[in-house]
Each structure stands twice: as C-alpha cells, then as structure tokens.
C-alpha cells in the first residue's frame, strides 16, 4: 500500500511536469509565424484550407495577386483543439513542410522510424550490459592488481573519448579501410535480415563502447564498496567460501544500485543517440527530429519533443521507483 501511494505520487508529479513542458513548447511554437508558404507544386488554397482545418487559423480570404489573409485562432483554443484531437482520435496532425513525407500522418511516420533506433539501442544494451558488468566485477575483485589497472585505463579512455570520435574511428577503420561493413545503415525495412543486421553493427559497436565503460565503472565502484562491508566479513566468518560470499551477498547488494540504471537505460533506448544516427545514416527518430528542425515542421517538432521529454522523465522516475521494489529496506520518500 505504501509503495502504491509512492508510485502514484511520483507518477502524477511526472505527468504534471510533462504537461507544463508540453504546454510551454506548444505556446512557444504557436507564437512563431505560421508557415503558410506553399511548397512548389502545392496549391496555396489547399495549404490554407489545411491549416484552417487543423484549427490554427480562421477566416481565410484570397486577396489580390494571390496574397492570402487570415486571422489567428487564440493559442489556448488551438491548444484545446490539439489536445482533443490527440486524446479522441490519436491524431497528431499531418506533415506540412517536411517535403519527403508531405501530407502524411505524423504519428505513422514517427512509428515507422522507431524500429531502427530502438533495435540499435537494444542490440547495444545486449552487448554492453554483460560485458560492462563483467569487466566491472573483474576489476572490483582484482582491485589494485594489474587486471584492475588495465580495465581502469580502458574505462577512462572510453569515457573520455567523445562518442563522435569513437564512431568516426569505427566508421573509418571497419567500414572504410577494412570494408567489413557498409559505411551507412541500409534503408531497407526488413530489419531482421542478415544484410540489414550487418549494416547496423558499426553503429551498435559505437553505442555500446560508451555504455560498457559506464557500466564497468559503476559496477566496480559499487562492488568494491560492498566488498569492504562488514557483513562480508561476517559471511566469511560463518564459513562461506569467498565465491559463495561474493555470489550471494556482495553481488546482490551491489545490484540494488546497478539494476535500476540498467532499467532506465532500457527506457532511454527509445530516444537513441542523434550523433550516432547521423554518422551512420540511420533512418531513425533522430534523423526525423533533425529534419523537422530544418524544415520547421512545427507539428512534427511538437510530437518529437513530447516524446523525448516523456522518455527522459520516465527514465528518471524508473530509477527511483525500482529502488523501492528491488530493495525493501529502501523506503523512498518516507519521512
């Protein structure tokens, strides 16, 4: 019952924050001039009618020499229409200026671009988590021996070298010089064929190197702290072997901290990495976001920023909530 209360409290706080940010974004976007210019090959009347139909403008009239006049709908009424459409029809609007997907449903375009982003991040977690944890455990168990030193240098290097440089290096070495992989990811929709999988691999490597270093550092710090705990001494005194003590006591206790961070990373895989997506030409959400910025497609931008905000907020509270579930001793938010 206590946990339930806590979770509801956190969730409602999160939703409150999200609503504020989303509203702020909407108002700021709507304060901008409405892009009413017709793209080449587009009928200006249709453009204006579409905007009127979306509820952004009203009272459109064609004046002399093709100049259209219109009145703006008050922003809060626009916001009401917008939210109503989302809630009742799941309609986020249509693409208005982003040439490639003109007049398509924004939500559908977005959903079509999710799989590459998510897949790459899931693969990278699948590789990164076990290796990272393994390295961290080795380093903690062999603390201050050569294994630890080597792993430490590796961690510091990987954490310091920015992901741009790492990704470029991987692209240059494996894709260009050695030619093992294609330079950019294939744009095919069949994500589970060998060809597409192979073209994803460089991006996966580039992504997972960073998370390997992060996990290894985290695990090493946590585990070596737990290993010095007094209950470890007790476990050894009561006759457990070192292996048993580490397995049943040290590892479990260090996981209390490590597991939530893995969980939150699995949530934030959704948002992906803009840089990696750009370097390896991945046809994912990141590219959509960047293009929606350049094309000034405001409805698209709204959806994507809402998405990014939601993902980062969720990842944040998942850590807090999961602490309480994993370790009953921790009573989050208790007085």
């Amino acid at each position, binding site marked *: 019952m206590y946990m339930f209360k806590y979770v509801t409290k956190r969730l409602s706080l999160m939703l409150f924050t999200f609503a504020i*940010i989303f509203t702020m974004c909407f108002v700021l976007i709507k304060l901008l001039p409405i892009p009413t210019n017709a793209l080449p090959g587009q009928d200006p009347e249709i453009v204006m009618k579409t905007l009127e139909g979306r509820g952004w403008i009203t009272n459109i009239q064609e004046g002399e020499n093709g100049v259209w006049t219109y009145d703006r709908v008050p922003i809060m009424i626009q916001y009401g229409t917008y939210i109503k459409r989302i809630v009742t029809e799941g309609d986020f609007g249509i693409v208005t200026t982003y040439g490639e997907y003109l007049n398509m449903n924004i939500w559908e375009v977005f959903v079509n671009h999710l799989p590459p982003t998510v897949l790459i991040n899931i693969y990278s977690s699948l590789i990164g988590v076990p290796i990272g944890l393994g390295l961290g455990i080795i380093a903690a168990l062999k603390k201050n021996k050569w294994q630890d030193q080597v792993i430490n240098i590796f961690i*510091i290097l990987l954490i*310091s070298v920015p992901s741009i440089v790492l990704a*470029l290096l991987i692209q*240059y070495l494996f894709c*260009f010089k050695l030619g093992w992989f294609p330079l950019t990811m294939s744009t095919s929709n069949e994500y589970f064929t060998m060809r597409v999988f192979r073209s994803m691999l460089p991006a996966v490597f580039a992504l997972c190197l960073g998370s390997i270093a992060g996990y290894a550092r985290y695990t090493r710090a946590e585990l070596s702290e737990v290993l010095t705990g007094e209950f470890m001494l007790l476990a050894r005194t009561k006759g457990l072997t070192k292996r048993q003590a580490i397995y049943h006591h040290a590892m479990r206790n260090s996981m209390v901290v490590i597991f939530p961070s893995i969980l939150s990373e699995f949530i934030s895989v959704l948002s992906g990495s*803009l840089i990696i997506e750009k370097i390896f030409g991945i046809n994912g959400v990141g590219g959509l976001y960047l293009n929606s910025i350049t094309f000034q497609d405001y409805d698209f931008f709204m959806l994507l920023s809402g998405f990014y905000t939601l993902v980062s907020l969720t990842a944040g509270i998942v850590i807090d909530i999961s602490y309480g579930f994993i370790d009953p001793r921790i009573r989050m938010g208790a007085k």
Partner: protein
Amino acid sequence: MDENMRNIPKEKLRFATKRDLYHDSRFETKPVSYFQGAFNRFCKNKGAVVGGIVISILVLFAILAPLFTPFQPKYYDMVYSYVTPKNSLFVESGIDFWDGCKEKNTSRVGYLKDLALAQETGREVIKHGEYEIAADGSYVYRYDTYYGVGFGKYKIISPEEYKDIQRYQNETGIQVLYPIVKASERPTLEKNKYDANIYYEVEKLDAATIKPKLNSKGEIVPNYWEYAAGEETSVIAEYNSLRIEGENGFKKDGDQHYYVYGRRVDGGIEVRAEYYEYYIYQHNEVIKDGITKPSFLFGTTQTGKDIFACLAYGARFSFLFATTVAICNFVIGVIWGSISGYFGGKIDLFMERFSEILGSVPSMIVITLLKYHMGTSSQALVLFIAFFATGWIGMAGRTRMQFYRFKNQEYVLAARTLGARDSRIMFKHIFPNGLGTIVTSFALVIPSMIYSETSLSYLGIINLEAGNMTSVGTLIAAGQQSIMANAAYVALFPCAFLVLLMLSFNLFGNGLRDAFNPSLRGTED
C-alpha cells in the same frame, strides 16, 4: 623489575620540577590551510598534473595560434582543396612524412600526366621521381598535393594583372606564366577543355581520358602555340617577360619563333599560370594578407579551408564560450542555490520545483525553440542563452546541497547569535566551506559544454560558421565527409583536439575532486 625499583639508590632520585612536565609540545610544522592542502594533494596526483599541463597547452594553442597564422577561418581556396598536411621542417629534412605528399596509386596514364607536369615545371610532383609498379600494373608513388595541382584550369585575368605578373616575373625571375596551347588543339570534351595541365600532344582530343602521345623515345611532346617573329595576330597578347624557350625564342625553319603566353578573349587574357607561383604572387603582391606561400600545417578541407586556422579559431571560440557560460552559470547557480538551501522551507520547495521542471526539458528542445524564435540573431548568442537557461541548474543543486550540509552546524549558530546578517552568514561563513566541491564541478562543466557545442554544430542544429567564425564540430562534420575522399587527416586533427581536451579535463577534474574532498578519493560518482 620490582626488585630494581625497590633498590634505586636514594641519590638518583630528585624532585620533579614544574618545568620538566611536558604535556604538549609545540608544533614545529607550519600550519597548512585548506587550499594549500588541496594544492599539495593535487600535485601528488600525477595524472591530474599531466591533465592540467595538457589543458594549458591546448589553451595556449587556442590563444597563440590565431596570432601566428596568417590564415583565417574565412579564408578558402578551392584549388588547394584536400592538400595534405605539410610541415616545412619535415620537407627540408627530406623525410617522407608530413611533407604535403600522399600515396598515389594510379594507372600509367595518370603517372604520365604527373610526370609531364614535373618535367614542365621542374617541381617534384612525384617525390624523388621514384615510383613502383604494383602487381596489377598500377603505378605507386608519393604524390605532392601542392605541386600536383599544377596549372589548374585556364585562367582569364585582366590586362592590368597580366602586365603586373610580367613585372613581377621580371623583378623576381620567377616563372609564373607558361606558354598556352592553341584553342583548336585542346581536348574537346567539357571536362577536359579547360584543363591547363595538358600542354602536350595527345592521342585523341575527344577521348574521356586524355592520353599523352609519346614520341619514339617514349617522351612527352610539348604542343605549345608558337608564332614566327613579326607574325603576331591580334589574338596574341603582348608578352615581354621570362620565356621558357629563351629570351630570343627558338629557330625553326630559319625563322625566329616564339611561344604564345596569353590569348585575348572576352573579358581579359587567357593564361596558363602555375598555381603555386601564382598563389604566392596573388597573396604577396595583390591581397597582401600575410600569407607567404601555400603550406598548410594541418592540410585543407574539401572547400580549401586551412584546418590549422579553423581549429585554432574554433578552439579559441570554444574555450571563450565555455568559460563565459560557466562563469554566468556559476554566479546564477550559486546565488539561486544558496538562497534555496539557506532559507529552506517553502522557498526551497518552490525554487526546487521550478528548477526541476526547467531542468527536465531536454536541452535539444530548448535550443531548437530558441533558434526558431531568434532566427535572425547570431547563432553563438542562441547557443549562449540555451546553455545558460538550463546550465545553472546543476550548479544550483550542488550549492544547495553544500548549504544544507553546513547551515545547521554550531559555528553558523554562533555567528547568528552574535548578530551576523543572513547574507554575511551565507557568503562569509557557509559558502567558503562548500567552495571546493563547487569549484570542482565548475572545472568539469567546461569540457561538457565544449562537447555539447561541438556535437550541436556537428549535427548542424547550430551553425557557427558565419563570418570569420568556425567550430570544432563543423570541422569534424567536414572530416566525416572527407573519409570517403580518403582524406582522413581532415577529421584527425579536430578529433585529436577533442580527445586530448576531454581526457585531460577528466583527469584534471578527478584530481581536483580528490584534492578538495580527500574523503571521496577513489569513489566515482
């Protein structure tokens, strides 16, 4: 023992005087202040010291390099695009490294073209004139990217410039202009038509790949446009300067013949100018921008920008920018955090909620919104406001924690009892105690700011390349394109800069943290 104690002779015993009782001894060592201790601890950490030294070298580079290089980010020269890094030290010592050359693997025709260029201009287009023939019959040699440009395309210059170049040639004795080929004997296809490097007889004028026609000895035959003395037509521009055929021309069929150096066309005079010398002439005599000769320490990009200058100016901008933003964030964050932490209660709750909501807006969205709203103003300003809008929150949080830690301690209570004002307690008593932690986070914020700026300009969300400005991120983006063109050095230098910066700042920051908080040593958060 008991026996001995009992048998001590009486004369050995005497009364203890007050003076002999030392309860405590004076400290002979000097007192060490907190910051001095921190500095000592910092100096013991070798990694941190090395990091500090590397950072200062990078900062010095960013400050000094723009002063010493005549090149600027706005400079570009499309002819010298993708020329490789050249360091005159290596060139003079004859080492095959960093000498502006690159490994070239080409067909026999390609080799002959370079050879022809080398023969005409007397330059080492093919380094040492050495080549190897690979198993598949291709020619492998070190190709000089500077001299290999040769003549570029036929150039149309004004009559005044034509005269001025002749004056320059007469004064210095350097050959800039070379004889041209008759228009009717040039290759006919559009892509080869203006290629001024083809001065020799070719096998087929309309072929896609021009093949030089060799004479019986296997040599290239020059095909200059020539005229007999006194038979000039109006098309031939007057030329009174250095001639490669000798001052008095050459004898042919008993007549005195000369080569043609310039052809009158619409809008000026068409010439073949050797680009290396023409470049020197242009920059020394006409533009006078301090560039003495084409020699690019870090090479050039696809658009012919000097990487060294771009990197130096970009680094200078990055450092300046990051430090300014960090200072602003520091001031605002400290004020906000100390108020929120010191007063606590409702004020704290409200301020915390505010910064929490602001902090959970993804920074990408803040930047994009700002960019939309400030479309016309400078991008650096957009970036500054965006980093400032969310950057102070971390600093405020850290300051708040420090205030919570100290505000209930006895010495604060004592100060308050003595009647100190709130502001005095905050900034005289509490703040100095938390300074170590706050300064450490200040040092760690700078590289993360530089990195965000770099990645934003790499992604193209922020375009800092306006006027005489550039950014390391823009250079990296150019470097990524150049990988395909087998010119990886374009990416190499900015990447190396970024890696060195991040690595040394990480080491330096960790050292600072350990020095200021010895109790945190070894734990990584």
